[in-house]
């Protein structure tokens, strides 16, 4: 079973994401910010990270840069999932090493499509 780490400071978003991902057959873990997410990844790298941008403690961009610098940190696919819809910001996320980008609000169809395009059918 493939694993997905959902990183978002909103409990509601984490809950919605978990339901969508579990329906898609993923094993889901949750983190409320980049610091928690780094701790999780240091223990075990997930197959994919669904990553919010604006969070307390450590934001999504900082987490992404640190993750990619970790041993094995290139392997997880990272899908930003953010309310930021400015194309320059989306370009910035992709250039920093994100594999895909989802603009909030989203639904199960969008998440399924993005993950399938990354070869991540669970």
């Amino acid at each position, binding site marked *: 079973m493939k694993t997905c780490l959902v990183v978002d400071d909103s409990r509601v978003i984490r809950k919605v994401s978990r339901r969508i991902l579990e329906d898609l057959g993923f094993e889901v873990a949750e983190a409320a910010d980049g610091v928690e997410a780094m701790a999780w990844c240091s223990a075990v790298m997930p197959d994919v990270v669904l990553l919010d941008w604006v969070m307390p403690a450590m934001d999504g961009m900082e987490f992404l840069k640190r993750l990619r610098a970790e041993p094995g940190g290139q392997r997880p696919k990272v899908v930003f999932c953010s309310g930021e*819809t400015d*194309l320059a910001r989306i370009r910035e996320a992709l250039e920093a090493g994100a594999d895909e980008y989802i603009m909030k609000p989203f639904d199960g169809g969008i998440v399924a*499509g993005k993950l399938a*395009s990354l070869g991540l059918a669970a």
Partner: protein
Amino acid sequence: MIPVADLDFVAALCRARAGLRVDPEKGYLVESRVAPVARREGFASPEAFIAAVRADGDARLAWSLVEAMVLPETEFFRDRQVFDALARDVLPALARARAGQPVRVWSAACGAGQEIYSLAMLVAEDPTLAGQVELFASDLSERSLEKAQAGLFSQFEVQRGLPARTLVRHFEKAGESFALSPRIRQMVRWRRVNLMDDLARFGQFDVLICRNLLTQLAPEAQAAVVGRLKRALAPGGRLVLGLREEAGGELTPMGGGLGLFALPGDAVRTAA
């Protein structure tokens, strides 16, 4: 609730005008599809709208009723592997066979344009294809064509099937919407075409894309439309149907389960 006689009228009208199969037993479906059009046209309910079309035979209203019954659902790069096969194999092979003549592609039920624009983006990104391919698109619905030509898509639409890298490469933000670049929009020529009419005046095409329309048509209309599309194909041309649609006749499935069919023959084409 829409009266049975009115549902029968809608089914007969759609079948006669556009070959569409509308099940008069599914009143809820008719009601849900007609409701937005009825509101737009200023009627209090779908029932009132259908009754008015039936009573006064207004041609424009009748067409808007028919158009409302077409299932418009599509998305960018729907069934991505089909577009990859077209850009990687089908179009390069045809371009070689045409030896300098442009490869003519027609998306014959284009809806809001996501499929033909998907292909346009792939062509634009491939230096061996750019400038070698002419793209045409048509639809029965004037409203769909207007939306397609505007090239404005909602946040929801650009997240269905469109990779983020493609989004940032070819779109600009326009308020809450996303506007496709003029460069890509200008690659496509548009026309309103009813596939129930004779298509001979449009000339011949190397690739005809008509995905997921046949399954919405009545059986006799399916055969008639496939026949017309086949006659609009140049020898050696390719027909692209939905993944579960069949062409039959002398069109040979190209394998891979992608809905690609080949018309036998060498690359000889008559002009429009």
